[in-house]
């Protein structure tokens, strides 16, 4: 579970950055509570799954009843991050009328993980079905937060469909991986379906290039954090930028 930094090192600066993302999401909307959140990116390999899993964990750790769904029905990976079975999951629930309680994995008291399940021949149709809409509405009644992982938006249409059906979208960009045109195109695609872009999560930023050098200071504030000060090598540190349009 190397990607689940919030499980392994809850006091690390990276975990703190995820908690900041949580706070930023919660404060980004005053009138309407953001319950369903989509995580996507412009291309593959930019850190969607890791971001989605850790954001789900921050909500769960804050005592919110959270459901994490792997809607990347083309290259699902959530099950690998949590090291759990993917024999049954989201698609089985949609296609075989299975109950959510049967298909989801109870990670802890507050977090349930719904893996992708058997890869279907028609992911987009499944995600745009009425059944999917009904499911999301019903789930929003039961869970405080629903975090959805998705395929890259510039590659397939799935994330656009989901973006239109959720309360908010987080766009993940990776330093030195995401290209600028790709990120702009991703934003356009989301705005086209009137998705509510909550903000952008920047990942893999080389330390030193940012102006917030708090990574080495954080331990100073942590109550019982590790004694040893770690060198600034947290190049995977995500930062949250509120960029509401």
């Amino acid at each position, binding site marked *: 579970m190397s990607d689940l930094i919030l499980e392994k090192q809850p006091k690390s600066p990276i975990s703190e950055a995820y908690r900041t993302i949580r706070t930023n999401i919660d404060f980004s909307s005053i009138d309407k509570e953001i319950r369903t959140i989509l995580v996507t990116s412009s291309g593959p390999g930019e850190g969607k799954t890791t971001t989605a899993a850790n954001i789900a964990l921050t909500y769960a750790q804050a005592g919110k009843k959270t459901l994490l769904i792997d809607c990347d029905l083309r290259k699902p990976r959530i*099950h*690998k991050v949590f*090291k*759990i*079975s*993917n*024999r049954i999951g989201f698609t089985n629930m949609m296609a075989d009328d299975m109950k959510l309680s049967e298909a989801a994995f109870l990670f802890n008291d507050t977090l349930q993980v719904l893996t992708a399940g058997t890869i279907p021949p028609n992911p987009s149709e499944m995600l745009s079905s009425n059944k999917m809409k009904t499911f999301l509405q019903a789930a929003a009644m039961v869970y405080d937060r629903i975090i959805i992982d998705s395929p890259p938006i510039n590659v397939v249409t799935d994330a656009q469909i989901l973006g239109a059906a959720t309360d908010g979208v987080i766009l993940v960009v990776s330093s030195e991986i995401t290209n600028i045109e790709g990120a702009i195109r991703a934003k356009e695609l989301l705005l086209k379906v009137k998705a509510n872009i909550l903000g952008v999560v920047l990942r893999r930023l080389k330390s030193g290039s940012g102006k917030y050098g708090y990574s080495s200071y954080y331990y100073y504030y942590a109550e019982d954090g590790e004694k040893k000060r770690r060198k600034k090598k947290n190049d995977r540190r995500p930062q949250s930028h509120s960029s509401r349009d």
Partner: protein
Amino acid sequence: MIDVHSHILPGIDDGSKNLDVTASMLKIAQDDGIDKIIVTPHYVTGIFENSYDDVLKSLNNVNSLIQDKGLNIKLVPGQEIFLDRYTLDLYKDGILRGINGGSYLLCELPMDKLPEDAMDMIYELHVAGARVIIAHPERYMYFVNDLTLINDFIKEECYFQINSGSISGIFGHEVKKTAKLMIKNGICDFIGTDAHNADTRSPKIKNAIEKSEDYLKGIKDTLIKNPYFLLNNEEINVKCRKLYKKSRLIFNK
């Protein structure tokens, strides 16, 4: 030495035909310095459906033969499982079990084409607590053509068993070359004989282990020790394993 892959049990699969063949195979094995054999009859859905319990029964018959002949070889139960979508359920039902009742499963894949869901099947077995050993990967056409395909299996923490016959060249030049490349990269945890009879595919292992030491220094020791971990169901160290990268030099193959 321990042979981790053998079709020595008589009349149960395409291996030994009868007790006489088994007896001569046992003799060859003992003369070659093998003192334990993990018997691994095929389990192929619809063709050879030998459950773990079937293997135990057959193994008892051969044990009495060993006593009669006064041989000094111990047999250990196992199965060679053809990986398909039924494998996980069969494992959970106890029809398939790990070697010596432990968690190591000797699994084979199709020779000609890598199944699309191979990695998913292996992942699910790992989640279910099994540890997958890939049987004779050097013989699969897709690995022979492009060994980089094996990197997914390395990342999924599979183990690899190479046939002694592949090293000596009985499966052809290409297979021999692939076996050599794998050993050079440390992608070899076991050498098994995959013996099917007493002549063309006989249970000899010694030369292959000696030969592999020429390819990668220090591997002989590992190859001799690993099967003991297997029998005790202990964790096997794979620290010398490298991801396979294609050499850019044509003459360096």
